[in-house]
């Protein structure tokens, strides 16, 4: 994606044509996620509309420094879908969407910046152990809780938690390695 031509940044700037473009480009992604993480097609339709409302509202918080348009939208979608799955049936503390600021990490913590895109994530997933990838897939795509994943895969709860943690840490390592390699190539 050309980050100089971010659809979200154009939306934040009031460009109405970017809104339609956003629906056309990212509608299938949001709809696909909603279908996988909703109990009924009607739920998926409601969720998709909610997600797009959130996208219009949040576009001004988008920063290309931390990820692409697609990553930003997938992040909003995932959070909204998780909230819908668990919101009414759980008293557990989840994170409010309003707290989600796409500010580069270094701006607040001084830590190394990581910028995410879907291609990097896909390559990292391909390098994970199957068991780690499947557990992450169940958590991220189906929105299952750790205990639900344990029941589905007939694994101990502790193993599921360990797989999720190790899988995410490994993905982060692989993406960071990828970023460093790309940076090194561009320096040549």
């Amino acid at each position, binding site marked *: 994606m050309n980050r100089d031509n971010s659809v979200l940044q154009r939306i*934040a700037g009031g460009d109405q044509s970017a*809104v*339609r*473009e956003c*629906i*056309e*480009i990212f*509608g*299938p992604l*949001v709809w*696909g996620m909603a279908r*996988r993480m909703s109990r*009924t097609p009607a739920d998926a*339709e409601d969720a*998709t*509309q*909610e997600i*797009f409302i959130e996208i*219009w*509202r949040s*576009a*001004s*918080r988008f920063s290309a420094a931390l*990820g*692409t348009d697609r*990553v930003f939208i*997938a*992040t909003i*979608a*995932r*959070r909204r879908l998780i909230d819908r799955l668990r919101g009414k049936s759980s008293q*557990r*503390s*989840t994170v409010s969407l309003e707290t*989600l600021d*796409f*500010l580069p*990490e270094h701006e*607040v*913590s001084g830590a190394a910046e*990581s910028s*995410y*895109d*879907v*291609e990097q*994530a*896909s390559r990292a997933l391909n390098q994970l152990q*199957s*068991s780690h990838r*499947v557990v*992450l*897939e169940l*958590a*991220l*795509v189906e929105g299952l*809780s750790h205990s639900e994943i344990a029941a*589905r895969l007939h694994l101990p709860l502790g193993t599921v938690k360990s797989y*999720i*943690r190790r899988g*995410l840490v490994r993905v982060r390592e692989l993406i960071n390695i990828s970023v460093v390699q790309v940076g090194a190539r561009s320096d040549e």
Partner: protein
Amino acid sequence: MSDHNIQNDALTDLLVKQVTEGLSAEEQTILSSIDPAIVAARRNSLECMMGALSAALVGRLETPPATLRAGIEQQALKHFERLTPHTRLGAHSSTENSKIIRPTSTQWAWLSAAACFVLAVVGWIRPPRVLVPPAPVTVQLNVPAVKVTQPEVPSSVPRTLPQQRDTLLARGDSLKVNLTTSKDPAGIGVSADVVWDPATNSGFLHIVGLKPNDPKIKQYQAWVFDGLRDQRYPLDCALFDVLTDAAEVVIPIQTAIPVRQTKAFAITVEQAGGVVVPDKVHVVALGSAG
């Protein structure tokens, strides 16, 4: 291990739990005791990474129904209408969140037409996007032959799925696998084969005699087994429906991640929306790649 590393590990554990499952009150209290700036930065980074993973994993991408697209467009228009010189698109409004727009019947026609027009224009002029992950396709079949709307292409390029399958089959580097049906009722009278392109992790599933399914209750799902991966977790390569008594169908199949050693293919019956891991209760057909 230093105290700093231990604290980092504990924070990672809490954040992973928070973003995948939610925290208990006790865990939330612990998290609240950590520097909010550090927590926010780490959590935002983790959330973005999980967003990227979700987009990569969602696999099959379907165009939303026209009525839904129209509703989203109408909602967006209302959002714009509310904007004043003092507000921007990023500002929150108090009334939108709880109001899901469902256009009235009189609005459907022009909204759908507008959506279709945008679809046609954007679909025509937009070059392929680099960041779209390989996506298995869901095909709803309501005629015996699969019909897929595609942009105009030179006449030398096969346009129908059966033609594309034949072209792939004729190539020397493709793989053909005949599937054997199981004793499951869904497999009775069915014959199936796969033509697979190992280079692109894609191909075509050709099926004869598969019974119609109710997409709201169950759907057919296709899988490929990678000999170099854990055999408990085959890779999803298609989710599809048969809506009428179609004698013969061809389904495009593709995996989201590469298949390193093609070992076998399977068709199962799963819950609506598909699953990440097949429960193996209803296996329609299975075939080894040799």
